[in-house]
């Protein structure tokens, strides 16, 4: 068995390219949720919004023959589901945790309903980006310049969110709303409106992440195909301490672990695969436990008003 442990058969370039693909769906979902949480809202419905995006994206791509229209539909589908959450939590004052969990259950069931008849159907192919000679650069070319467009879109979104939260006036208002909604309200900012917009953005990103699975990663529609990716995205936001570039790092770390352990196994290496396979879910559980403890949240510098209902007073 030692004989089959041949490191030379593992191509790090292929591995690096594959990890970006494996990471993209959770990166998209996580960056959306990061904005939602920065606005002080905890939406546990990421899994439900992802799977809804996966099915709406798939259905529209098949119907129109155009994967990009499918992606737009996924954005709309995820955002649409998120707006239900916004209505319930921001206007009807429903509990955010319970509503988020319900959103996940609803999304899983609703997507199964919408997806009937799409089993075994092939979606239109999403072409890879054409960077011309850049794709032929040794090492860097295959890693960076031969992906599908959504990989680059996800990176652009991360950069945009970082810039928005850090430098834009609107981003500062959003952060203020998340840190202390009473103070933000007293200053005249429209807490609810900001939060609804953030929730819709989070849903749109989660939907796009789901469409990445159904249109590019797997590419097919299968019920329940997100298989927990939304929960990992939620954990990733906390792991990233609500910082966009750290979310990118965490997602790529996750993608790297997944890809590396599968590749090592395929190459015949004996690795503690049972622990590696378990790791993302264990971390997720730990993180969700931490999230529910007030003191731990403060030490992690969570947004001050995260998960707290806002009642406009005075």
């Amino acid at each position: 068995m030692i004989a089959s442990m041949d490191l030379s058969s593992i191509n790090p370039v292929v591995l690096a390219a594959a990890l970006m693909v494996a990471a993209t769906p959770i990166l998209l979902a996580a960056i959306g949720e990061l904005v939602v949480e920065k606005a002080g809202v905890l939406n546990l419905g990421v899994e439900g919004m992802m799977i809804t995006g996966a099915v709406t994206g798939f259905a529209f791509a098949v119907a129109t023959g155009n994967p990009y229209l499918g992606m737009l539909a996924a954005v709309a589908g995820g955002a649409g589901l998120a707006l239900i959450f916004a209505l319930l939590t921001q206007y009807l004052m429903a509990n955010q945790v319970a509503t988020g969990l319900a959103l996940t259950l609803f999304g899983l069931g609703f997507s199964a309903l919408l997806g009937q008849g799409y089993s075994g159907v092939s979606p239109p192919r999403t072409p890879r980006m054409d960077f011309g000679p850049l794709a032929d650069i040794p090492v860097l070319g295959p890693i960076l310049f031969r992906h599908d467009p959504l990989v680059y879109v996800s990176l652009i979104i991360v950069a945009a969110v970082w810039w928005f939260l850090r430098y834009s006036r609107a981003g500062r208002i959003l952060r203020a709303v998340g840190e202390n909604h009473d103070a933000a309200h007293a200053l005249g900012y429209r807490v609810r409106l900001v939060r609804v917009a953030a929730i819709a953005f989070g849903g749109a990103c989660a939907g796009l992440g789901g469409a990445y699975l159904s249109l590019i990663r797997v590419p097919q529609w299968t019920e329940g195909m997100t298989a927990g990716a939304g929960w990992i995205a939620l954990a990733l936001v906390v792991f990233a301490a609500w910082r966009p570039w750290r979310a990118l790092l965490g997602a790529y770390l996750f993608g790297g672990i997944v890809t590396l352990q599968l590749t090592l196994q395929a190459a015949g290496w004996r690795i503690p695969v049972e622990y590696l396979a378990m790791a993302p879910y264990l971390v997720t559980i730990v993180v969700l436990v931490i999230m529910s403890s007030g003191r731990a949240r403060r030490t992690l510098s969570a947004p001050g008003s995260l998960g707290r209902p806002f009642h406009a007073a005075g």
Partner: protein
Amino acid sequence: MNRRQLLAGTALALGLSTGLGTVALADDPLRVGFVYIGPVGDQGWTFIHDQARQTAEAHFEGRIETSFVESVPYGADAERVMTQMALSGIDMIFATTFGYGPDVNAVAARFPDVAFEHATGFMQEEPNVSLYNARFYEGRAVIGHIAGRMTETNTVGYIASFPIPEVVMGINSAFLHARAANPDVQFRVVWVYSWFDPAQEAAAAEALIEQGADVIMQHTDSTGAIRIAQERGVLAFGQAADMSAAAPDVHLTAIINQWAPYYIERIQARLDGEWEARDTWYGIGEGMVGMAPLHARIPDDVRAEAEGMIAEIAAGDYHPFTGPINRQDGTPWLAEGEVAPDGDLLGMGFYVEGMTGEIPD
């Protein structure tokens, strides 16, 4: 039937039982519940169980009423779902995954009047727990042979779920027959630690193809891997159901789980009041394991060999685990001409000689 209807049924049944007592009317339909590990739309394991449920319901024309709960993890959730079913007046429960064993037996102990049928398990601690399983290794022998004959890189990729005897048995059966057909063939096994995760299964298929595999086999429930095989143009086999729709060009055949005849037989026994716990392990011969149509790209000689093997297994003339077979470490397991006892297969925790790699703990 879905979760909501089940819950509505539950509420109704509770209301009725308090009103009317527990006397069942003669023309009441028998109520049969199914508990699934995955979604009914997985196109594999759970899908095919649900097809069998529908076949049984149609067969009995109103004399039974079925319901199901899907995506139930084993452990506390499965126990709760089955308890709920039993409390709601369901007479017979099919629990369709290996991991439900402890839950089935725990609930069965509390509801001695409910008949439990547990698929692919081994725990039978209560008199009202029946076990049923299919000899999937017979189908795996066939696909192993085809893989051995058709691989050009001599590397077969195998996507495995969990290191339990059922899965190890399947790897060994496929490997033995691939090796018999092609002495240079190697198996690369990737454990994904999930029954259903399309993205992970797809990533595993990609990793295996990257390592030179040109035939992919799976012991997981989704079409994620075979879909990648289709995209990358490598050969593959379906699992549990005919998956050719997901991979029309490369789906050589599939091992098909045919549960409906068993479900009909057992429900009939319950209707007749003759149900008692059994331990069933049927194969190709009894019709519990079937093979999907062989793809046109399988060469004629290989097709003839595969069909011959299917016929011999069905007739009981050939057992896929017939000695001499050694364990991976070289120690003898089966002597010349010896056939593996069922007990050895059901507890199989070792690879056969020639396999590389180790089974995870």
